[in-house]
């Protein structure tokens, strides 16, 4: 079998921490980064005799997420115990949902090379997170000591399981990005892979193009960033295709993505797979979900990324690319909407946001809401450009300061004397001085060197410290040189 004739099949299992204030079965805080074992109580420590009580907010967030992913909410579901021993799991079982999940049958649409692809979602269920182990050594086997932090124990999670509809590592990355965007829009999770609030395991197999049956799959774990998901799957796809091309068989197993070596390595085989001995948790009553409540949640869903992107194109006349970029995060899209409301020139706003705003946000790795910049600032700044008070170039300088300090753009312009020189008499005088000081360049221009003109514009700008009205400078130079 040639590698070119093989098709990749991927399914993702995504765990997302819900951004509730308290844990799923007790009232401890879910705050990230607190000193170890400070957000714990007898319940999330699994002390003898304690019982879980479901946090209604966690259920609500899970229902919100499931609805936004186009799932059906099961009228009846239940919690089950997933039994296994590990030091970060205080009860030695995880409360999860096994055969009757909260929601099922949804989908997410992604765009691949300009073409829409629908990735079906098999199920969404609710469960609790485990604690975190810190090893004095490489892993639990090699460590002299291991420490456990139970702050994370009992943080609510949803697990989103896709159907095996993903056909490439790039599609997997796009699907994951889309999930993240949707969940952020909903406000149910902060989806930070680096903090572990979004985690992803993958099942990958390959098969002859056009085949109906799935090939033997491997499960890949420990891909802790979007990049790692892409690289890990790319590696595994290549490994499996090469193996099959060489006539080898794929072994069903769990593989670990080794970030440093950029390879996946075998963790455990099928025979060593855990028997989790799932059974219904007798400490919790079944979840019987009120239809009216679900509809109430459905009505409260915000405008989701796809709808918003379409509206940006329709209402603001933006190109697809701009609309995509501007709706990639809810906060940025909110910012844009508000700017356009205050300064109704969608294209001008879009140009500025896509270039200047995003450049600084990316440089500082910040979200728009974490900066002092407001839509009012940007609208005012663009207003100053429009009315000719400052040039577009000066606006960029002023913007940098507004972005850093949150000061009023008009004040900055005034204080730094940045008002554009549009006085024709004054500019004509400066143009004359520049021409007089650069006779050789003038001669070059007249001799046909177009570039000389740009140099002369630059000299005028330099003399006015950038404040000269560029259109006027052009006009005056052309007149005087002709």
């Amino acid at each position: 079998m040639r590698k070119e004739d093989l098709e990749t099949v991927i399914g993702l299992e995504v765990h997302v921490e819900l951004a509730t204030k308290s844990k799923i079965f007790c009232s401890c805080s879910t705050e990230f980064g607190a000193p170890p074992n400070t957000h714990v109580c007898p319940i999330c420590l699994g002390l003898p005799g304690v019982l879980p009580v479901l946090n209604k907010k966690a259920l609500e967030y899970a229902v919100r997420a499931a609805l936004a992913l186009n799932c059906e909410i099961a009228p009846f579901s239940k919690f089950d115990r997933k039994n296994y021993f590990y030091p970060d799991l205080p009860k030695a079982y995880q409360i999860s949902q096994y055969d009757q999940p909260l929601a099922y049958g949804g989908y997410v649409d992604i765009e691949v090379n300009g073409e829409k692809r629908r990735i079906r979602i098999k199920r969404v269920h609710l469960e609790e997170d485990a604690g975190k182990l810190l090893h004095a050594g490489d892993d639990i086997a090699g460590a002299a000591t291991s420490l456990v932090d139970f702050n994370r124990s009992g943080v609510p999670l949803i697990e989103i399981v896709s159907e095996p509809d993903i056909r490439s590592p790039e599609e997997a990355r796009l699907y994951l990005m889309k999930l993240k965007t949707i969940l952020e829009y909903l406000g149910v999770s902060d989806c930070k892979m680096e903090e572990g609030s979004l985690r992803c395991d993958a099942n990958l197999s390959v098969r002859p193009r056009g085949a109906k049956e799935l090939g033997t799959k491997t499960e890949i774990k420990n891909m802790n960033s979007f990049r790692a998901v892409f690289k890990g799957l790319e590696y595994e796809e290549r490994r499996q295709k090469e193996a099959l091309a060489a006539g080898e068989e794929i072994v069903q197993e769990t593989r670990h993505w080794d970030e440093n070596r950029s390879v996946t390595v075998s963790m455990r085989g099928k025979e060593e797979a855990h028997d989790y001995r799932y059974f219904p948790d007798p400490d919790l009553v079944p979840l019987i979900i009120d239809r009216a409540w679900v509809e109430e949640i459905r009505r409260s869903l915000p405008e989701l990324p796809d709808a918003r992107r379409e509206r940006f194109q329709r209402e603001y006349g933006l190109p697809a690319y701009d609309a995509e970029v501007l709706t990639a995060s809810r906060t940025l899209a909110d910012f844009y909407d508000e700017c356009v409301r205050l300064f109704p020139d969608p294209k001008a706003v879009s140009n500025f946001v896509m270039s200047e705003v995003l450049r600084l946000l990316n440089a500082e790795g910040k979200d728009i809401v974490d900066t002092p910049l407001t839509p009012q600032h940007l609208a005012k700044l663009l207003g100053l450009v429009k009315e000719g008070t400052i040039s577009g170039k000066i606006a960029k300088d002023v913007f940098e300061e507004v972005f850093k300090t949150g000061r009023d753009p008009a004040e900055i312009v005034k204080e730094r004397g940045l008002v554009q020189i549009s006085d024709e008499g004054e500019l004509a005088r400066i143009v004359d001085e520049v021409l007089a000081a650069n006779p050789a360049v003038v001669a070059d221009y007249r001799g046909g060197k177009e570039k000389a003109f740009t140099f002369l514009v630059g000299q005028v700008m330099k003399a006015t410290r950038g404040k000269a009205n560029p259109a006027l400078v052009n006009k005056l130079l052309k007149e005087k040189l002709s």
Partner: protein
Amino acid sequence: MEIYDLTAHELSRLLKAREISAAELTEAVLERVDEVEPAVRAYVTVTREEALAAARRVDEARARGEDLGPLAGIPMAVKDNMCTRTVRTTCSSRILENFIPPYDATVVERLAAAGTVMIGKTNLDEFAMGSSTENSAFFTTRNPWDLERVPGGSSGGSAAAVAAGEAVFSLGSDTGGSIRQPASLCSVVGLKPTYGRVSRFGLVAFASSLDQIGPLTKDVTDCALVMNVISGWDKMDSTSAPVEVPDFTQFLGREVRGLKIGLPREFFAEGIDREVKEIILTAVRVLEGLGAVVEETSLPHSDYSLPVYYILAPAEASSNLARFDGVRYGLRVDAPDLISMYGQTRSRGFGAEVRRRIIIGTYALSSGYYDAYYKKAQQVRTLIKQDFDRAFEKYDVLITPTSPTPAFKIGEKADNPIQMYLSDICTIPVNLAGIPGLSIPCGFTAEGLPVGMQLLGKPFAEGTLLQVAYAYEQSTDHHKKRPPLAGAAGGERHA
């Protein structure tokens, strides 16, 4: 009669009239503990200082004129599988021998708020698995009526303490008969409430869908008084029922004329001791004499109760007891690696019966066996419950023996788990159905061993059980007899 022989409601009158102080009463009970404990061995831990301090607080409150409930100042005992803040909670297991919980069980909190005085924590079969206290990792409690015999179990310490006057009342837990069977064997009143009636928060779980906390008392009135305190919905327990709690004492004294009583024939068949059967039928005739209508009936799926129970209870236990892994609290046996640490800690920390049930339960839940065992058992459990539903369409109360035999000798069944499991043949179906069951003393065998009668009711109909039990108790004097322990005034009365 000695002070320690009195009931809570009798003592409550004396305390209110200031004929005795709570401190004096507590001292008297602690003296009784000193006197008979070497023979009975009901307690794992006696909390002498804490008890005296609590008693003094009640006396001070009374001196300030505070309005105190009927149980204020009453010395009581708690089975050592309910968490008590600052007092070790062992479950009579090596694995929790030195475990001190940082919180109180809801029932302990409620009893403390009612002003009761905890004397100590009582012995049990390890993790409540057993019918004799012989499975305690520490020692076997003895039956105050015959020190050669078991007190029953698993709440054997709680039953023996009340019978011996070492506590005025106690709390037990009942998963398959663990309150009622020892109550029967020790001649005290024991009630397993409806599942969900009493909060399980803080009860170290054995089988979560079956466990229920209840009182062991010297008479029916005391049972009603304790139920008034411990019953009711608890936000910490999702399985506790949001059902209104009546004043249970209002059922006492209501007549039983016209009440319909069913005798399920499966509970009077083979395996029930002839003498026990005769004593129960005599007791039933007393109720008949009071105007109750008695008929024979049937619970056809009863035969399956024991096998169903010995799949479901161990399955839940195998998961509930997995947290005792040596990582965070309790016993840890150091070993070179994690897996051996788990293995050695749990092998050394758990006794043989607990290990047996963990293995059975793990097996029953294993992939490939789940449908044949756990799932099938759940289905049969539903059939058993439906038997009771049908019976209660016709009858107000069902009556059976509590235990098929009176107290057996220590060691008699220790090596035969099946024989031991059969001790709970009459009580197990009740837990599977989730209904309330009460055991009331109803006589003695020729050898002088107590026999208990089990009354069963509809869900949340504990009031009806108390009504019938009280009517019976007022017509008889079994509840006034005290065991013949050294130095005990009650001994002469019985002889």
